């Protein structure tokens, strides 16, 4: 057990004049307690107005991405004691419009995602009563791509996104490459169309923040590199 002070960045949309402010909550934290457990305990026992998104508690739904001690993480899989600090600052993820307390708008995330036509595009109809064949090697190319949970941690950490709110974002590039790399997909031109743009791929300056931010240890920068090469092949041959 250890007494931890949580410094939480709060914001109430009904009180614009006050704007953002920091509120402190002290909590006795035991081994194994995650930041989400702590936030829940604060909400349920100290202050019901503290607002944050959460759902699965197990790092698969992507709801509880927030900035904890300056780093974008999933609150549900961050152990409080592993942060090794008596003070833990918790803020909403940067770059997205604020909604309330730790909750941000996901609209930029969705807009970027939709731009890459995030679905399998095929031209040849599939066999009627069989699956399409895909070798284990072809399937292995999707590992590290399909696991994205759309938590938004990467795009929020990206300086290109901070500079350009219409930047499509590393999460969407990862998704685009998930399809471009799929042996079954026949629409790489369509996936790439929106990426060859001022708000697209060329805005990535290979800063690697997205890689560091990803709670699922995925590598959007690598995907972006592959997509750039693919675009060059398509445009220049």
């Amino acid at each position: 057990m250890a007494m931890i002070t949580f410094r939480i960045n709060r914001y109430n949309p009904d009180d614009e004049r006050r704007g953002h402010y920091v509120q402190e909550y002290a909590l006795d934290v035991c081994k194994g307690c995650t930041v989400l457990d702590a936030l829940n305990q604060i909400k349920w026992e100290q202050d019901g107005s503290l607002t944050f998104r959460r759902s699965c508690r197990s790092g698969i739904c992507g709801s509880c991405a927030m900035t904890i001690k300056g780093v974008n993480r999933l609150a549900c899989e961050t152990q409080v004691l592993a942060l090794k600090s008596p003070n833990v600052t918790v803020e909403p993820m940067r770059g997205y419009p604020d909604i309330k307390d730790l909750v941000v708008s996901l609209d930029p995330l969705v807009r970027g995602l939709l731009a890459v036509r995030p679905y399998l595009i095929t031209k040849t109809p599939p066999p009627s009563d069989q699956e399409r064949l895909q070798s284990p090697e072809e399937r292995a190319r999707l590992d590290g791509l399909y696991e994205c949970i759309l938590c938004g941690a990467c795009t929020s950490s990206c300086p290109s996104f901070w500079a350009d709110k219409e930047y499509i974002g590393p999460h969407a590039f990862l998704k685009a490459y998930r399809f471009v790399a799929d042996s079954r997909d026949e629409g790489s031109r369509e996936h790439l169309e929106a990426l060859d743009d001022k708000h697209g791929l060329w805005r990535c300056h290979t800063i690697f923040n997205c890689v560091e931010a990803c709670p699922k240890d995925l590598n959007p920068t690598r995907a972006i590199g592959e997509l750039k090469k693919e675009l060059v092949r398509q445009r220049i041959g």
Partner: protein
Amino acid sequence: MTNFDPESIHDVKGVPVHSVHRHDVVIVGAGLAGMRAAVEASAEFDVAVLSKVFPTRSHSGGAQGGIAASLANEEEDHWEWHMFDTVKGSDYLGDQDAIEIMVKEAPVVVREFEHMGCPFSRTREGRIAQRKFGGHTKDFGKGGPILRACYAADRTGHALLHTLYEVCVHNRVRFYPEFFALSLIVRDGVCRGLVAWDVIGGGVHVFHAKAVLFGTGGYGQVYRITSNALANSGDGLSLSLRAGLPLEDMEFVQFHPTGLYQSGILVSEAARGEGGYLTNDKGERFMERYAPQKMELAPRDLVSRSIQTEINEGRGIGGGPYVHCDLRHLGADKIMKLLPQIHELAWKFLHVDCIKEPIPIQPTAHYSMGGIPVDIDCRVLIDGKSKPVAGFYAAGECACVSVHGGNRLGTNSLLEASLFGRRAGKAIVRFLRETRDFPELPSDAADAAIAEVERVLSAGGSESVGAIRTELKDKMSAGCGIFRDGGKLEKLAGELRGLEKRFRNIKIDDRSEKFNYDLLEAIELGHMFDFVELIVAGALKRQESRGAHSRTDFPDRDDEKWLRHTLAWKRGEKVEFDYKPVTITRFQPKTRTY
């Protein structure tokens, strides 16, 4: 496609006109069932999907191990074998007409997922890979475990959920993310839409529809140790009850054998399917005593009871309330390739490296076999038996077809959700082709919902919602868990009534309209009180042990009296019961051993 015409919309008291929406179909829940139905219906009609969380946050994504289908990609398999396993797994309470449909259509549904782009793991030949799972066997139970569960590593639910979302995006399904359903509008046996709360912006919205589908999922959150998401509060069940409709077989709650110790987070059955052992304090593979043939791959109800018995008899690790799931002998390669997520979860939540150490696990509330009674086309039945509510459908965990009977087999839930979601979509399309006009929307449609929100926002009592919910969960785990008995259930029923009384005197800290989870959690707790009473009352009534319902005072199955489904209504303060027979076609009830 219907063109939106604000002029044609009825006035709904207390709701601004711009907050009245009209769609041919309104689906509540963006999990596998809801989105699979949306994919089906959106080809022809205007479909809206409401979800209390962003669609890809739905809890279907938490499913890990696989989706069952007798594809026979890895070895000989037949739908008849799958059917036998499902019937036996259900402890003969499953309706065999529905089960037959499910196992026959399963290969089609799985292959369609592949065609949509789901990244299934593959065999050497490039076909969808399949693995072993508990209760799935060869040759009508005579052979060993069979390779039937189609998987995408141990992220099958995630892969399926995201694939469906992608297809919905392609089909231009209209999503209303972070809309929380408040009430269902059913009048004179006709469903006319529903009322919902806009979580982000605040405000009551009315959805006027020709058809409504519930794919609202389960309610694991009424138990202390659960694999379920915090969002899984059984809202759809309560909304259905409040519309005067019954619930079926609510006493059957599945406890998954392997939840991570303390958090209850799921460790997929794939861990055992790939060869993991369960061991107690003495290091014994104790399943030898309970299921000598199928061992760790016996069905979940049996394995959970075995673990709980070991714990109760003091053979938990160090005498504590958990045992070990040991994967070490599988080796690092197999673990990282086939069970990467389990490795990640055990590390992140218990700091256990399952390549080097066994994982501490305990049974965890996982799945609801019961739910809203529906027919094989997912039409909700007003009497629970044969009479459908016009325009109201339910599919997935919130519904009870019943294909799982007293106990669900692993990988049959992803199958049921997507397969019956698809059937519901097709049934809705047929219904809409015959239904040209929107049903009339009563002007007081939103009254109950508005009153509920206002009551919570102005609550001036002294009781904390969090504290009451914690007590409810603790009491449900203690009194209505894996093992039940009459005395404990009666006591629990009384305690729940006391808690509900306290719930009427809650306080609230956040009275704003925008993104108010304080409000939502209070409403969700109200939903929980609606149906936990039915779980307990149903468990008390059913004086036998069958599937996941295990009464220590009635340890045997009693087909004479209890080979029938429970139907329960809430009428005022009272719970009313009715029963209906089980449909038996191919397999007569037999003693169930593994």
